[in-house]
């Protein structure tokens, strides 16, 4: 239903703001993918990303999720210790053409993206009755 395209791993994206160049690390968000009735649901964790900074693109069958983060240092504070790294998120999936692309629903709450991909009507299994000869 949702085949993954890119291999796992981080990527670095260079951003130039004025004099200093900061490297924004792009992580692979953890996802849950399940099918319920006629809908495939993708849940992707993107903590630290505001809902306006989530980019979902669907080009042909390729679904790309991108989440960008703003500066995460609390104002007036310096970094003391870090157990996790902050950064953006990106992950790409290939959808089967059975998804009704016009009815995709996206919702972003508490750092988790929820995508609902309903199955297209023509892709639903049809029962074919066999007539007796």
């Amino acid at each position, binding site marked *: 239903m949702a085949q993954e395209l890119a291999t796992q791993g981080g990527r670095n994206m260079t951003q130039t703001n004025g004099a200093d160049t900061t490297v924004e690390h792009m992580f*692979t968000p*953890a*996802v849950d993918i399940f099918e319920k009735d006629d809908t495939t649901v993708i849940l992707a*964790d*993107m903590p630290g990303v505001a809902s306006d900074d989530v980019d979902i693109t669907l080009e042909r069958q390729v679904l790309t999720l991108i989440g960008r983060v703003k500066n995460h240092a609390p104002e007036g504070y*310096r970094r003391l210790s870090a157990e996790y790294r902050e950064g953006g998120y990106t992950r790409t999936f290939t959808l089967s053409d059975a998804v009704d692309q016009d009815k995709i629903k996206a919702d972003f709450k508490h750092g988790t993206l929820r995508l609902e991909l309903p199955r297209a009507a023509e892709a639903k299994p049809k029962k074919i009755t066999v007539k007796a000869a």
Partner: protein
Amino acid sequence: MLHTLFDPFGASHPFIDMRRIQRDMNRLLDGVGTSRHSSTYPPVNFWAGEDSIVMTAELPGLGEDDIELTVQDTMISLRGEFKDQDIDEDVSWHRRERPKGKFFRTVELPFRIDAEHVDARFENGVLTVEMQRPEDEKPKRISIKS
């Protein structure tokens, strides 16, 4: 949550997947027996200010009410649970990578915290806790006479 820290050979390097498996195994074994207490989930970052300290933790998918935060003397504790909302019997899974179940973590700080002046915010799945030192324990500047 799938944070690959160092990626010198590009995204297609096989060790990335190996590290991922290793971490998944660690997470799996973390829930075995009584190891809950030594659990290090969630990972936390610390930021230092003048007389205050900020702790941040990523807890995506949780609501404000799902997180219990307690502060006592030098200890700060985080407790919570990831609840499955849509999970009923007729769901067929393709991938399950997001964190599950309960967590409890206690971190000891280098100084006492004024429990009356703790400011906790939860925004976009990131918990930010700002803690102050008690007024009478802040370091005092002493002027030296010539």
